[in-house]
């Protein structure tokens, strides 16, 4: 038996012994997602047990170093972990922007002290993070952001407003882009971390077309942030932000897997498929979705050995999100009048229609499709003036 086979056997046995039966059921709604945090809401005991058991082994962040709360898995081992979890249908023990976004940025730009402190909290699900990037006047043109941190010696006093802050009303801490030099556009932004309980921070949920409010407006009114809470160098936060956006784009693209890559024709056809034109559209979608899944696999394989173009996640994000929107258009069409139901029990509270509406943000958040195409044109195709 090779080392990896032995590792697989070990993971399989551990999962069998430790993953509660309830945590092997598919995630049905938002309540089934475990976000952790200071005021963590657990749907049931099993959800908490599953998170705690994984955290104790470093399995909430399997490929982070052990010193920072991870399990120190190699890429090949982490792939085995994902495969074995998928094999028994295990839910992610912990979902968080700390894991997906802040973590990778801290691993690259954080001080040793910051890594030990913040990464450990993230891995154990103790602190729930949100991301303060967009502002009302700075969407695609993010670098024009105005939220300002005034230098007061050993701290900054931050004033301004963020928007589209995911789950800001539920988050404990925020990682935030703040202007610390008004004279320099790109090199005048710093990447700050602070507690959402700091005096002067207020949040206001935004009701979306889906009827849900996962995003907030976040206001900063004379918020005091100690200078130890900066990631990377002063005025070089844009570098951190760009690095982190790459991770976000990869995540949104679904390149790492997930159901949005799947073909849908066979699923739809189970409930009957009488319209030949719809069937044809589904077949065309399936061709594109199955081909895109190959691209996801190829991208991950190439990224592991440094063969992927660094701007490739932008392409993946563009295609993956456009595909997901198309997927939900087809699911709505196939669902007919049933899919229109907004709060019926049969649709688990309007899941088809609310999910369909939610996907419309996919090609806006984390960089619009148009911005992704700009980046591909400039950095990969090297077209003039782009």
């Amino acid at each position, binding site marked *: 038996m090779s080392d990896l086979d032995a590792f697989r056997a070990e993971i399989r046995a551990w999962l069998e012994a430790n993953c509660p039966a309830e945590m092997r059921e598919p995630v049905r709604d938002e309540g089934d997602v475990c976000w952790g945090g200071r005021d963590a809401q657990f749907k049931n005991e099993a959800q908490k047990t599953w998170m705690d058991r994984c955290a104790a082994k470093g399995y909430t962040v399997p490929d982070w170093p052990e010193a920072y709360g991870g399990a120190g898995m190699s890429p090949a081992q982490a792939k085995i972990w994902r495969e074995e979890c998928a094999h028994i249908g295990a839910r992610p023990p912990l979902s968080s922007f700390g894991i997906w976004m802040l973590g990778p940025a801290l691993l690259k730009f954080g001080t040793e002290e910051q890594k030990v402190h913040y990464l450990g909290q993230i891995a154990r699900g103790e602190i729930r993070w949100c991301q303060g990037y967009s502002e009302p006047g700075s969407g695609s043109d993010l670098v024009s952001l105005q939220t300002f941190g005034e230098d007061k010696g050993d701290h900054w006093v931050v004033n301004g407003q963020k928007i589209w802050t995911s789950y800001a009303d539920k988050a404990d801490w925020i990682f935030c882009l703040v202007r610390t030099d008004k004279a320099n556009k790109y090199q005048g932004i710093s990447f700050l971390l602070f507690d959402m309980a700091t005096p002067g921070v207020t949040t206001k949920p935004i009701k979306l077309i889906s009827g849900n409010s996962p995003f907030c407006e976040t206001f900063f009114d004379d918020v005091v942030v100690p200078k130890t809470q900066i990631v990377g160098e002063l005025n070089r936060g844009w570098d951190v932000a760009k690095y982190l956006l790459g991770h976000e784009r990869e995540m949104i693209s679904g390149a790492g897997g997930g159901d949005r890559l799947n073909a849908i024709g066979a699923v739809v056809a189970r409930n009957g498929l009488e319209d030949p034109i719809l069937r044809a559209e589904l077949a065309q979608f*399936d061709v594109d979705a199955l081909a895109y899944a190959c691209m996801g696999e190829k991208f991950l394989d*190439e990224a592991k050995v440094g063969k992927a173009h660094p701007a490739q996640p932008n392409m993946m994000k563009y295609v993956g999100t456009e595909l997901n929107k198309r997927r939900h258009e087809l699911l709505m069409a196939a669902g007919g009048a049933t899919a229109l139901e907004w709060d019926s029990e049969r649709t688990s509270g309007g899941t088809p229609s609310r999910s369909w509406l939610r996907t419309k943000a996919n090609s806006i958040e984390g960089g619009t499709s148009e911005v992704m195409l700009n980046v591909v044109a400039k950095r990969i195709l090297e077209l003039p*003036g782009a």
Partner: protein
Amino acid sequence: MPLYHTEDQAMLADTVTGFMADEGAIKQQLRHFRDINCQDGFGHALWKQFAEMGLTGMLAAEADGGLAMGHVEAGIVLREIGRNLTPSPFLTTSVMGVTALSGGSEDLRGRWLPGVLAGDSVLALAIDEGPKHRPERIACKAEKAGNGFRLQGRKAFVVQGASADAIIVAARTSGSDNDADGITLFAVPKDASGVSHENLRLVDSAMASNITFDNVELDGDCVIGEVDGGRALLNKVINAGRIGAAAELTGVGQGAFDITTAYLKTRKQFGQLIGEFQALQHRAAHLYSELEIAEAAVIKAQQLLDGNSEKADLMVSVAKAKAAKACNLSVREGVQMHGGVGMTDEYDIGLYMKRDRSLSEFMGDQYYHAERVAQLSGY
């Protein structure tokens, strides 16, 4: 297996890229043989060079003098053929033909393979019987006659059929037209009595013939594999042709894309390079995405075929459909972005558009393969 080339495959790609750009270039090959109205539609000297490089026998077994390589390697050659629009019998002879012969007896392989490997002979595939790819339906009949068979019927779109030394024919030896069973493959020598060609030039300057078999007497030695049991081998040959055409399509799409983006970087209007216009940048970036994805689907399908995976059939159809979609977008956008000169024979972009059309049709177009994806997925 990771979805990129191994070191050996990357070395092969390097060699073939240089070779095809030098020897298989549009001016020396495609334009030359078109302009002299060559009735083969390709150059025999270049075919000989393919042989000298070992390319003609890539898929043949080592015992037969070949390199025993797979579809990933053949795809590397086909992508470069596509990129340079190089006319050659490689796909029909070395990919499909060799795959067919590999299912035949030692005698049969000994009769045809040495010529193929040496670059002296060419094989053609006679499978379809009408203008669209419908291999499920085979009406061309071969009836038992003495120790052999008598072949009767018509075949269509036989690429390089009139130039071939042997035509590999899928014929019905029992059952009715739409039966899966009852198919036998034959290697019909070009000088067999009763074979007549309607030799046609196609839009991409390739030659293809419609063949009539009028009571063609074949001895038993012409049978490839099992009598009545040829469907599995035929499917293998067809899959080889489909994934090969898909690989060539990614090359055609990439070639068209490369000259188009180069044009965007040199052509000026309104006092600026047209590549500065966002309207064109976004279309180019979208096209890039589609081509990358098609390439990923193609290498995945190649690996599955080489690994004899049961998922190969589905992924081959995904790859052929996706490659056809992406390549077609590439040549259409290419001509449009070239503007007026894209309509001239002097510029190469139109040649890419013609080749895309022909290759897309070969072994099933995107609609055929999307339908097949639906069927194989169970709807």
